[in-house]
C-alpha cells in the first residue's frame, strides 16, 4: 500500500460566482482500520483563505503548523493577510524544500483574492502547482472526484447551488472509495457586495461505512 493511502482522504474545492467551496471527508484510518470519524482536514489560514491537506495525516498536521507559523510571521511583518496566490507559492516552496525527503501530503488551496475573485489550486507532494478555473481534487478518492466534478460542475454557480454540487460530488465519490468517507465537511465562503464575507460550515451525513 502506498504511503499516500495509509490514512485515507478526499478533498475537493470548487469555484462559483464570487464564492468558493472546499470540502473534505471525515475519516481517519490506519490502513483498513478506522480510528476516528471526525478528523479535520480543512484548515483556516485567514478569513478568506483555507487549505485542505490530504495524504499522510501526520505530515498534513506538521505542514499545517508550519504554514500557520509562516503566515503569522507574514502578518506581523506586512500587517495584512496573505493573498491566495502568494500563499500557494509559499506552500509550493515549503514542499519543494523537502524534494528528496518530501512531506507525503497533497494540498488543496482555496481563497478569495483581490476584487473577491475566487482562487483555487492544488499541488502534488513536491509542490508542482496546478491552477484551475473550475475545481481541484485530491486524496485517495481523487479519480472518482474528477469524474463526479466534471459531470456536475457548471461555471458561475450561486452559493446555494455550489454547496449542493460540491456536497453531491464529494459524497458520491467517497462512496466508491473504502479509505475515505464517514461523512463530509463542507465550507462555503461567499463575498457579497455590501455585507462582510460570509462563511458557512456544514457537516454532511453520507454512508457511514
Amino acid at each position, binding site marked *: 500500500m502506498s504511503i499516500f493511502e495509509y490514512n485515507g482522504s478526499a478533498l475537493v474545492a470548487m469555484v462559483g460566482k464570487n464564492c468558493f467551496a472546499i470540502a473534505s471527508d471525515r475519516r481517519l484510518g490506519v490502513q483498513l482500520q478506522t480510528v*476516528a470519524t471526525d*478528523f479535520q482536514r480543512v484548515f483556516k489560514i485567514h478569513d478568506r483563505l483555507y487549505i485542505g491537506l490530504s495524504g499522510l495525516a*501526520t505530515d498534513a*498536521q506538521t505542514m499545517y503548523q508550519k504554514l500557520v507559523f509562516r503566515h503569522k510571521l507574514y502578518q506581523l511583518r506586512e500587517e495584512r493577510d496573505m493573498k491566495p496566490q502568494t500563499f500557494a507559492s509559499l506552500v509550493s516552496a515549503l514542499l519543494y524544500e523537502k524534494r528528496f*525527503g518530501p512531506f507525503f501530503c497533497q494540498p488543496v488551496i482555496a481563497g478569495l483574492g483581490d476584487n473577491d475573485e475566487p482562487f483555487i489550486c492544488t499541488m502534488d507532494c513536491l509542490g508542482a502547482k496546478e491552477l484551475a478555473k473550475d475545481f481541484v481534487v485530491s486524496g485517495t478518492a481523487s479519480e472518482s472526484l474528477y469524474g463526479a466534478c466534471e459531470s456536475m460542475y457548471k461555471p458561475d454557480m450561486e452559493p446555494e447551488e455550489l454547496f449542493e454540487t460540491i456536497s453531491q460530488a464529494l459524497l458520491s465519490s467517497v462512496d466508491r472509495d473504502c479509505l475515505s468517507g464517514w461523512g463530509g465537511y463542507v465550507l462555503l465562503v461567499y463575498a457579497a457586495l455590501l455585507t462582510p464575507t460570509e462563511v458557512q460550515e456544514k457537516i454532511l451525513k453520507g454512508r457511514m461505512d
Partner: protein
Amino acid sequence: MECVFGLVGKGFAIVAADTSAVNSILVHKSNEDKVMVLDSHKLLGASGEPGDRVQFTEYIQKNVHLYQFRNGIPLTTAATANFTRGELATALRKNPYSVNILLAGYDKGVGPSMYYIDYIATMHKIEKGAFGYGSYFCLSMMDRLYHPDMSIEEAIELIDKCIIEIRTRLVVAPPNFVIKIVDEDGAREYAWRESIKSPDVSMA
C-alpha cells in the same frame, strides 16, 4: 501482542494495557506496567518496541515535570499531547520512535480528555481508542457498548468485556491487564486483571 485501549467517561478517563513483556516466543514477565502516570492528572499508555517505549515515555514524563518546576503550573492535557506529537514528528525523519500512545488527562474546567498519538505522530482527540491486535476486538466492542458520559461502573464493565474478548479471541492473548483511571482526584491505578500470577521471587 501488546494491547492498549481506553475511553473517556463522565468526569474521568480510563486507560488499560496488557502487562506482558515479550521477546519473540519468550515471556520475560507478566507484570510490566505500560501505563505511566505522567503527573498528578495525566496517564500515558504506550505500546510498541520495549526500548523505545520506556525511553520515550520517561523522556516525556521528565519534560512534563520540568515544565511544572520551571513555570509553577502543570501542563494541560492538550499541551502535553501536542508536545508529545511534536517530539515524535521531529524524530520521525531522523530516528523514529516505534511507540503508539494513548494520553489521558483531567484538566480543571475542561474535564477529562484522551488523545490518540500514532507512532508516526498522527494526533487526534478521541473518546475511545485502542492500539495493537487487541484493537480489532476492543474498538468494535466499544463502538457497540460505549456511550458518552458513562459512569465508572459502566466503564469498568466495558473494559472488562474488552479484556474478556481479547482473552477469548486473540491467539497469543496476554494474560494480565492493568487498568488506570484519571479524574479530578488525580491519576491512579484502579485494578489489575490477572489470570496468571507471576511467581513470587523469594528474597535471599
